[in-house]
């Protein structure tokens, strides 16, 4: 039996799993702009890292500025980076998309947790 070496494949396997998980997230709520954007992105470039980690690094190094208007705008920009497709949205749209995105993320987490539980037991 020829098992392919696991070291080479683990990373790409992880990527594939992540990809499929993201796809499930996108498919779970197709009425929203972020979902369509995510689907497009996943279908067009399958093996790119969805790059949660890079986004996290960026936001952690962000500092807070003086005026509130500018502050809010900065935070909105961060939010834009978090939500898929947020770059093309203005403030109102982002706020409406974020709600559904949060709910779907929570749902995804529940599903993944139970999947993991399944595999442990």
């Amino acid at each position, binding site marked *: 039996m020829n098992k392919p070496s696991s070291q080479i494949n*683990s990373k790409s396997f992880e990527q594939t799993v992540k990809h499929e998980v993201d796809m499930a*997230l996108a498919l779970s709520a197709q009425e929203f702009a972020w979902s369509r954007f995510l689907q497009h992105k996943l279908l067009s470039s399958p093996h790119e890292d969805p790059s949660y980690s890079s986004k996290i690094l960026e936001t952690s190094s962000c500092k807070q500025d003086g005026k509130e208007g500018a502050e809010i705008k900065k935070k909105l920009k961060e939010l834009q980076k978090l939500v898929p497709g947020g770059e093309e949205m203005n403030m109102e749209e982002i*706020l409406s998309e*974020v709600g559904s995105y*949060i709910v779907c993320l929570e*749902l995804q987490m529940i*599903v993944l947790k139970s*999947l993991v539980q*399944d595999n442990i037991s």
Partner: protein
Amino acid sequence: MLESLVSLESMSLSSMDVSVLERLKWLQQQQQQVLSTTNASPELLQFHGTNNDELLQNTFSHFQMLGSGFGPNYSMGFGPSHEAMDGCISRTNSCQMDQADTVGVMLKNSEENITISLKNKRKSEVKTREEEKTEKKIKVEAETESNMKVKSNLSNTEASSETSKQKSKAASETQKLDYIHVRARRGQATDRHSLAERARREKISKKMKYLQDLVPGCNKVTGRAGMLDEIINYVQSLQRQVEFLSMKLAVLNPELELAMEDLSVKQFQAYFTNLPVVVASKPSLMVDAPLFPLDQQGSLDLSVINPNQATTIEAPSASWETQSQSLYNTSSLGFQY
């Protein structure tokens, strides 16, 4: 009228139950009220007929029977012979088609109470399947009627979502915009731009409020910046958790033989979507997806895949998640070499 009712009861006892009789009596009372006010009961009956062809035969026939004291239909046969009633109904249908509009108006104005109270009355009784059907239809009627009422009320304001805003603000002046009706507070500018601006801000604050309910811990923070902070943190933490869980899932399934160099993602997905087909037919379909090395395995027990759902979670994407889960389930069964 009472005599006719008594005769109805005696004839119908054999086929109907007590609740229906009660309804009969109640309906008759209603009919009397209606008749005294509008004098339109035959048309009412026929309107019901035109409205719903599959209206419950029993109740419609009751209508007919009740009103038939005034009309020539009285001599028609009662009882469980629905065909006779159908004949009645179709006849009335055919001759009242053109009057449907006027009757419709009359119905809305004066008979809404009846339909709505009919609906309520029916809810309290034991339902047969046919009765449920009727109830739904009459409910739809009542709902559409109430919608139209509401719409007529709001025709001035043109935006029903803004009525709550009206209530909450003290009004000194109002001004109509194209789509949004916003009330200005005392001393505030009322030109078009600032009102539009205010409407926009109202929308945004409404959305922020919704997000506040969604994100845990947002209630303590005040101000938009703080709330946005919380939201950002929450989304980030959710994403991180998802990433962690998916990595854990990947780690927990190293037994999955994946020839990742050859596998394209589309194939992967296609495998999942084909899974039920695969279960039904021969495993030859599996040859394309190199996920299960069939040449190394004697007989892959495909029948195990679907029934072996250990958990019953409600997956967000209907078939996809359960299939992927079943995939992982089979992998945990182990491969026999």
